């Protein structure tokens, strides 16, 4: 009986649907809870960094779960608060903007792999560990992020508030100018990988060396540009909640929280991308994937196929978690830039360096084709 069901779901008819559903559920669970988890991480990590204790007062039946219940309380508050649409706002677009911001960040995860391929016994085709891997994955991600600007611009523009409009203009100027830098910083790495497919990039890094070693300048620049794209401190000029008013001024309740959630999802998204492009994805030095039934030597251990898959997945998750931690570390260490400093950094410093990096990489590829 069990064998029959197994044959059915691994058969050519049903396997794309079944495994597609499993993978989608897996990714969506991670992405949707990341807003909750990362806001908790942000609170607690900032508290620990600053010798504080952090949010710990909310509890269910006396269990505060290290402050996690606070975030549930926040969600409850967001849902039950008044959802106010200003009379001058365009109702449809005002409602759509936060969803657009959140949707684009989430949709980008469709092409991001979280592992190589796994082979199950009895299946002809290996299963790719990504919802919809495609050759132009990176382009898809960038396309989605570009649409994300619309969410921000719309939210400020249609809310019928001068400050909102100004905030949206600031945000769009910042995001669009850094989109140039983001693309160009990656160009050097793409020239080496010769592909826009994340799986090919990881394979290249497995065969040669990690992107952070071949492209150190590109790594630092891309890291900086992603923080600007995420609109987080030290580049949170669009919101700047402590002194100037940003695009989300006319939003309340869960719609406002959606903007925050989009920010956290983008944190996860960019950590994911950086791991794939610069930190070797799921690859660990010295560890090679054996064929099913074979085993490989690593750190003096003999590992079969299954353990290697698990170790590689854990390595990938560990790298993503580390980068999320690092982005929080930056967020709670550095003071905010001034607006002209951001533009100066983007156009006069990062753009020329990124172009120089492209030239340098071309020369390197020309003389050492390996």
């Amino acid at each position, binding site marked *: 009986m069990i064998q029959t069901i197994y044959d059915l779901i691994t058969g050519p008819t049903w396997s794309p649907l079944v495994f597609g559903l499993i993978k989608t559920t897996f990714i969506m669970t991670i992405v949707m809870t990341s807003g909750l988890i990362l806001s908790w991480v942000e609170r607690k990590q900032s*508290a*620990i*960094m600053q*010798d504080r*204790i952090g949010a710990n007062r909310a509890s269910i039946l006396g269990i505060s779960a290290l402050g996690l219940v606070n975030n549930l309380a926040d969600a409850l508050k967001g849902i039950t608060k008044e959802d106010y649409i200003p009379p001058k706002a365009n109702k449809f677009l005002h409602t759509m903007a936060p969803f657009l911001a959140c949707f684009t960040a989430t949709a980008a995860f469709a092409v991001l792999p979280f592992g190589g391929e796994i082979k199950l016994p009895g299946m002809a085709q290996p299963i790719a560990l990504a919802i919809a891997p495609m050759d132009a994955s990176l382009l898809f991600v960038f396309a989605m992020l570009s649409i994300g600007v619309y969410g921000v611009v719309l939210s400020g523009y249609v809310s019928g508030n001068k400050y909102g409009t100004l905030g949206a203009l600031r945000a769009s100027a910042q995001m669009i100018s850094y989109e140039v830098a983001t693309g160009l910083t990656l160009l050097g790495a793409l020239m080496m990988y010769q592909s826009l497919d994340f799986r090919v990039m990881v394979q290249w890094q497995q065969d040669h060396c990690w992107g952070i070693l071949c492209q150190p300048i590109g790594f*630092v620049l891309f890291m900086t540009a992603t923080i600007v794209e995420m609109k987080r401190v030290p580049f949170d000029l669009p919101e700047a909640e402590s002194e100037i008013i940003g695009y989300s001024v006319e939003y309340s309740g869960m719609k406002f929280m959606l903007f925050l959630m989009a920010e956290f999802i983008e944190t996860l998204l960019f950590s994911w991308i950086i791991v794939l492009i610069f930190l070797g994805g799921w690859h660990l030095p010295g560890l090679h994937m054996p064929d099913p039934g074979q085993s490989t030597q690593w750190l003096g251990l003999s590992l079969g196929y299954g353990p290697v898959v698990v170790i590689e997945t854990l390595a990938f998750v560990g790298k993503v978690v580390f980068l999320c931690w690092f982005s929080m*570390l*930056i967020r709670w260490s*550095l003071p905010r830039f001034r607006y002209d400093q951001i533009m100066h950094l983007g156009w006069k410093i990062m753009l020329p360096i990124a172009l120089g990096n492209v030239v340098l990489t071309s020369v390197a590829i020309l003389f050492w084709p390996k």
Partner: protein
Amino acid sequence: MATAKMNFFERIYLPEIAKGLAITARHFGRNMYLHTMHMFGLAKDQDAMVTISYPEVRRPYPLVSRSRHRLTKREDGSPKCVACMMCATACPADCIFIEAEEHPDPSIEKRPKHFDIDMSKCVYCGFCVEACPEDAIRMDTGEFNLAFFDRKALIYDKEFLLNEDPYAVPTGAVAIQKKS
């Protein structure tokens, strides 16, 4: 004011940013290590944070700090106060109300029938304590946590000011609670 000129390494930001991140990461590592050790009951002598979990834990206050008043007692438990009105006269906020009556003991002239302090007016100057010839009023309870939903609850009467129970609730507050 001229800004100090930055040298090349300061102008390319990155070394300075790395220094800053090293400081915060060091704090994170140290505190995270201590928090983990505390979970297992180790290294209790080192604090992982400077936060004091008020109101469960309170900072020790200096002895000279002035806090809520109390009335001191004679050996028989009656107030030392002789209703001389010195404190009420000295009070710049005019928040002490005393009504005197005859004391049964002929060697003592008067005693207070009512002794109310309106804590919503009190400025904690301590002049009443200085003015008192009998050491009948003191500001050494260590209590300054006065928060109520009604101003009437902040008028402390003689019974409450004589009460030595640190968890006592002012009489006015009790009356308001009973009414509602």
